[in-house]
Each structure stands twice: as structure tokens, then as C-alpha cells.
């Protein structure tokens, strides 16, 4: 290696691989994965979110799952939690809606108001 810039470039790329383990506060997308959620298609929703993030090369978002929160008829349910902002909960998130949420809420910071079922 001949320059420090080369090292910096590798580091930036590689940090994307380990960021998940740093425990730093970042945007979190939480998908409801109770039996009800899975039955309603939450697996596909989650896959769509992952795909969309990968396509856009978004590395600093953490995607996790949670159990049933008792709003089974609203499943698949997706929470978006940005650092310093209130939690936004979306209901009946299909694959298509999921992609849209990534595009507008995650990328552009625009909450997709019509699908929101709770915000606290």
C-alpha cells in the first residue's frame, strides 16, 4: 500500500461490514415477526426492505424484528425509529409499501402519513 488514502478507502468500505456490531445509535427499522405478522406476509416485507436498502447502498440502518404487539389485524407492522425522532409505526405494510417507506422515510426523511397507525 502506497498511500494513506488507499487505507482510508478500504476502511470506509469495510466499516459498512462491521457497523452493525458497533452499537452506535442509528436509524432502526423494526418488523413485527410474530406468527400473525409472518402469516400476513412480514417475511416478504422484511425481504423487500433489505433489498431496497441494499439497492440504494444504505449501510447505516439497522433492521431488526420484534414479536406480536397485539395489533394483529394491522400486520405486517413496521416501526421506523430515527435517532432523536419519535417512533413511527406503519400498518399493513406490503412489499410495495415497504419499498416506498425506505425511499421516502429513510432516504428523504418524509413520513408516509397515510400508512401511519401510531406515532409516539
Amino acid at each position, binding site marked *: 500500500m502506497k*498511500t494513506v488514502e488507499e487505507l482510508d478507502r478500504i476502511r470506509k468500505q469495510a466499516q459498512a461490514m462491521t457497523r452493525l456490531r458497533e452499537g452506535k445509535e442509528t436509524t432502526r427499522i423494526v418488523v413485527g415477526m410474530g406468527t400473525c405478522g409472518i402469516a400476513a406476509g412480514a417475511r416478504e416485507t422484511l425481504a423487500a426492505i433489505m433489498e431496497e436498502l441494499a439497492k440504494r447502498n444504505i449501510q447505516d440502518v439497522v433492521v431488526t424484528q*420484534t414479536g406480536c404487539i397485539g395489533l394483529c389485524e394491522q400486520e405486517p407492522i413496521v416501526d421506523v425509529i430515527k435517532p432523536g425522532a419519535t417512533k413511527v409505526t406503519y400498518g399493513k405494510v406490503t412489499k410495495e409499501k415497504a419499498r416506498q417507506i425506505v425511499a421516502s422515510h429513510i432516504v428523504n426523511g418524509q413520513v408516509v402519513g397515510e400508512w401511519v397507525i401510531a406515532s409516539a
Partner: protein
Amino acid sequence: MEFYRSHVLVCGGTPCVLEGCKGVRDALIAEVKRRGLDREVKVVETGCLGPCDLGPVIVVYPEGTLYQKVHVSDVPEIVEEHLLKGRVVTRLAGEGVQAGVVKYEEPTYLGVQERIVLRNCGTIDPESIEEYIARDGYRALAKCLTEMKPADVIEAVKKSGLVGRGGAAFPTGLKWSFTARADADQKYILCNADEGEPGTFKDRLILEGDPHSILEGMAIAGYAVGADKGFIYVRGEYVLSIERLGKAIEQAKALGLLGADIFGSGFSFDVEIRKGAGAYVCGEETALIESIEGKRGEPRVKPPYPGTEGLYGKPTVVNNVETIANVPPILLNGADWFRKFGTERCPGTKVFTLTGDINNKGLVEVPMGITLRRVIYEIGGGIPGGRGFKMAQTGGTSGGCLPKELLDVPMDYFTLPEHGSALGSGALLIMDDTHCIVDIAECFMRFFEHESCGKCTPCREGTARLHEIVAKIARGEGKPGDLELLDELGSAMQVSSLCGLGQAAPVPIKTMLRYFRDEFEAHINDRLCPTGTCGT
């Protein structure tokens, strides 16, 4: 680049390997694939996470949930519940876990720990140079080579107050300056990874968990003193360390982080691995040098010291693995940063292998100067069965014994000797009140008799006689005057032995006599072993 929502880190340290972590890793990979999660969940093998006694250990990120004693049969449940549905499997998350979530980053186990040396152990894949680089790897080397002069590097290490972690506590910056000043056409950096001390496995787990930190530290040392060649002398049994170091060297060479003209600075550095010859004394720096030269591993007469006349007669720096692992963070963050940890006289941290009668056995890194009480009761989770503390042995056989009286003494390289004890290399063996001191002493002295290389008389004869006398006392055949004889013989060995082996062999006996004399006396005068261990 692929994007994963979850990383499952499987500890691949030797203690966990022995518990079957490879099978767990393979089962995880297979199950994740079977569930169709293989594009979302990445399984990574990592270095020691610390709680080795609870292995195999895995951590699931981003939650940081630590699962212990994971068996292949637990894998489907972890995948289904945690990775698919996001529910922590409380059953495997360990005892005393509240609300079912253990954050690996902040369990009580790691409560008072500071991670400098182990900064990457259990967090990165040790076989990936990219993951090391992601955590600021090789940045310190870049900084040294492009922004600092060799003298500045030495000055920074001096200012940090770093002292050798191999046992002798020699100031590292000062050691480097001797070699830097020496005029020679060739100089060497040796990493001492022989780790022959019974009960110590910290160097092994550092090498397994973060091999690149050693290569980077050695290259920095090379630049500071003007050496272009390094050897790592690794204990022969450390198969995994040798394998991972080998891979790391290849990767670093491929990226040009070892080799010629690193960062276009004109500085070149290469590292080779040498397997240890198997004797305890080969960890002594001059015996180690003899061994690398292909000779029988026996200590040389000092002076001259290796710093000016070492490997092949050339100026040579010998440093312990843990010492070297401290070097990159010191250079990257500065001496003042390092001095924030530990004590004024002894800055930084110390890595211990916590073993014996203690609830949480494993690898811990604590600020220098922490008290034994805190290590045992806060980090170690206390003594099993609520039994009483009798003593701790620091630094393996060559270290000292810490009795109850020293539970609240700051543990560092300078304070313990003031109490007739020593910090040593890194073992911390805890013994409860069921153990007999004479029995332990007999075991230690047997070790030294066996390991004495026989080159010099005080140690060759002395270790045999020490063992003989202690063994007699244990058998109930001790005579009045034996304890005085042990003391006298020990003092003679300390001043007249050629190397540290013979000089340190009497240390455990002397501390035991100082703090547990009544137990020796009971064996001699009353033919009684107070704990009922010895056949008196």
C-alpha cells in the same frame, strides 16, 4: 456490497473450540440457509469474547445478545426465535439475566472492564484484514510512517508509561531507545508468544482474536528502532494462533502493509513465525533467541542485553504479545489518552486469565491498579459455593501469592512487589479455603524442578532442593529449621541464578511463608494438614 440485517458472531477461541463451537457454527450456517435467511443473516467466526468457561459462546447483533453453552441442538431454536421472529431465547442467555436481554456490550461481566488490548477480540473476524482495518487497523502505522519520525514514536511510547506485560515490567519506550541508539546493519523485532506460564492463555487468545494488531505493533516498533525484520516466537501447541497469524501475514503482504516501502515511506518490514521448542525457559528472552537461532534453548549470560546484542548478535527488541498489542492504540490516540487508564505509575490495562475457584472463568481486561477484591467479586462473580477466599496466584508459577491481606491492594507492577508479591504475566488463579498451601507449594516447586534448564548450579540444585524440602513437609516429614532453610536457599537462588527462572522460583514459596507460615508450621510441628489435603 452485501447488506445483512444481523450478524451472528460465533466465538472461535480455543476454549470454545474445545467445547464444540465449530459444530455450532456449521449448524448455524446450515439452519440459516434452510430458513432462507442466508442473505439477511451473516455468521462470523470471531476471537475470544471473554467468558470462556461458558462456551461455546455466540453473540447476535445488532441486539448484542450473548448466548452461552450453545449446543448444536439449540441452533434451530435460536434461528427460529431470535433470527426469524426477533425473540431472545432466554433459556440460553444465562443466569441472572434480567428481562432476558444480555447486552454483550454492557453485562455486569464486562462492567468494570476496559478494552484496549482486547479491543477487537470477539468483535471482528480475525481472518479478515478488512474487518481489522474497519476498526482503525493499520491507521497507527500509517500515522507513524507518514507523520512521525522514529524518535517521535519512541518518545510517545515513553510518555505513555507502557511497561512490558511479559512479567518483568521493563519500560517499553526505554527498551526501544537502546536498540534505536545501537549502530548496526541489521536489527530485529521479536514478539514473545511462548506463553509457557501455567494457567496463562491470554497471549494465545489475543493472537487468535486479533492477529493483525500484533503485526501492526511490530511494524511500528521496527520503524521506531530501525529494524526491517520481525519474528514471532509462538508456543508450538498454539496451532490456531499460528494458523491465524500465517493468514494475517499473507493478507498484510498482499495489501502492502508488510513488505517493501510501506505507505511510500521507504520503510520496509517483514514478519516470520517461529514455532516454540516446548520448554518453559524458552520464553526467557535470551533462551528464545538461542532457540530461533536453531540452538538449544538455554539462557545467555546478561549483559550484553538483547537490546544491543540479541538475535545473531544484532540489536533486538523482545516484547510480549500484550505489550505489542498496546502499541497501535497508543500511537493512534496518544500517550495522554493511554494515561487515563490505570494508575499514575502504571498506566493502561492488564489482561488476565481468570481461573480456579471463581464463578466467571475466562479472559478479562481490567484497568491496572484494580484491586483483587473487585476482580473476584465484581467481575468474577465470586467464589463458587460461597466458600472463603484463601489466596490468588498472579502471573502463573513465577508470580506471587496474594493472600486475604492483599485483597484491597492495587494490583500493578510496582505496588505488589512492595508487599513481597508480583503481578507477573497474566494468570489469575483463585483458590478457596479448601486448598492446602503446602500442597500448592509442592506442586509449584515440582514444576520448577522439571523446567530448570540446568545451565547454572543455583537453579539446577536449588529447584530440586526446594521441591524436596516442601515435599517432605507435605508428607509430614518436615523438621524444625526447614522453613528457615527454604528462606535462605530461596534468597541465594534469587541473587545467584543466571536467569529469571531460578530467580523467580523462590518467589511463590517466599510469599507463602510470609503469609501462611502457620500452615507450614502445623505440618511440621503437629504433623497436621489443616485442610486435610496432605497425607500427613
